[in-house]
């Protein structure tokens, strides 16, 4: 282990500016390609966050904490029974719950939506911003169209222990810059 560390350190020190820059750009290309894939997914699904991790157990037994959800927005109207992901002003994490009431005004097309977590006792009115009684189309980020069980647990760990995330990124970064590819 200490061998790898000293080897990495000597590589870093003996690199000249040009090599360092080239390796840095390679690292940048790898990171930005992941970013671009995310942006393309955003454009393709119409959703601000095309992939989300389920953070609470409020939708059990349909979804468990750590599941990954794939979202798609589309233009179709929001209907009862659909599982939607929505944002509430003042909260920075989106919520994944089921639509239980939809009121649509024929003339204006305005839609009021009420949601509730399958595993929760009451509906989501307590979760909405103060004074807000319904969700509207603009709050909805997308509908759940697919899921992967448990794979998102990694994100939850990294969120609960942020230093794990930073450590991981630093180590990966150093490894890439010093890899002699």
């Amino acid at each position, binding site marked *: 282990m200490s061998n790898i560390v000293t080897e990495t350190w000597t590589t870093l020190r003996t690199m000249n500016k*040009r090599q360092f820059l080239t390796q840095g*750009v*390679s690292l*940048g290309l790898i990171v*930005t*390609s992941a970013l671009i894939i995310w*942006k393309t997914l955003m*454009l393709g699904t119409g959703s601000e966050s095309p992939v989300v991790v389920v953070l609470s157990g409020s939708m059990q037994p349909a979804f468990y904490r750590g599941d990954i959800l794939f979202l798609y927005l589309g233009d179709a109207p929001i209907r009862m029974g659909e599982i939607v992901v929505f944002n509430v002003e003042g909260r920075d994490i989106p919520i994944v719950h089921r639509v239980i009431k939809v009121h649509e005004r024929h003339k204006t097309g305005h839609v009021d939506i009420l949601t509730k977590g399958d595993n929760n006792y009451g509906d989501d009115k307590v979760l909405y911003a103060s004074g807000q009684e319904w969700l509207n189309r603009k709050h909805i980020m997308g509908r759940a169209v697919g899921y992967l069980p448990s794979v998102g647990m990694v994100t939850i760990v990294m969120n609960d222990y942020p230093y794990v995330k930073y450590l991981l990124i630093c180590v990966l970064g150093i490894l890439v810059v010093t890899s002699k590819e």
Partner: protein
Amino acid sequence: TQEVNKGDSAHIKRLLDEVAAEVVLESGYDEDHFVSNVKIVLGLITCILALVAHFYPEPFPANKDVVMLCVGGYFLTNTLLQVFVMIWEKEVIVFTQPKDNAPHGLTLSTNLPRFSDMYQITIATANNAKEQDPADQIVVEKSVTAWFHDDGYLAEEIFRKDVRNALKKYESMEAKKRK
């Protein structure tokens, strides 16, 4: 000197490449940084496009056009970069400027196929105007076992001598052609 794991083909090639490049650059040639510069510039532009797409100060649906432009631009410059590397760089590990009165610099390329032990050094004229003519190159091919001791240490002097000889053969061939 350096030690390699005898089974690690990639490490062997990297080490030989490094030393071969040193030999060429120590023989009075200046490195030509054109390809390296283009790769860095194109790479930087590509990364910046992605960063703009991410950090543009409008929230999602509003910034859709900017994001689309950036994503499109990203694929474009990335493709440009790959094509450039494919056409210009190929297997070259060093490009040099012309030395003395030579009209062109040279390129040093190496090849070590996947499951083979035959390391091939090619010194050719860095002339992009015409297709690489076999008559314009010196190719030296030897098994890597000729340059490594049993315990994995590189017999550096032997390898350097081989590279220097290849270089001298190339230089005398070039000189003859100009007469």
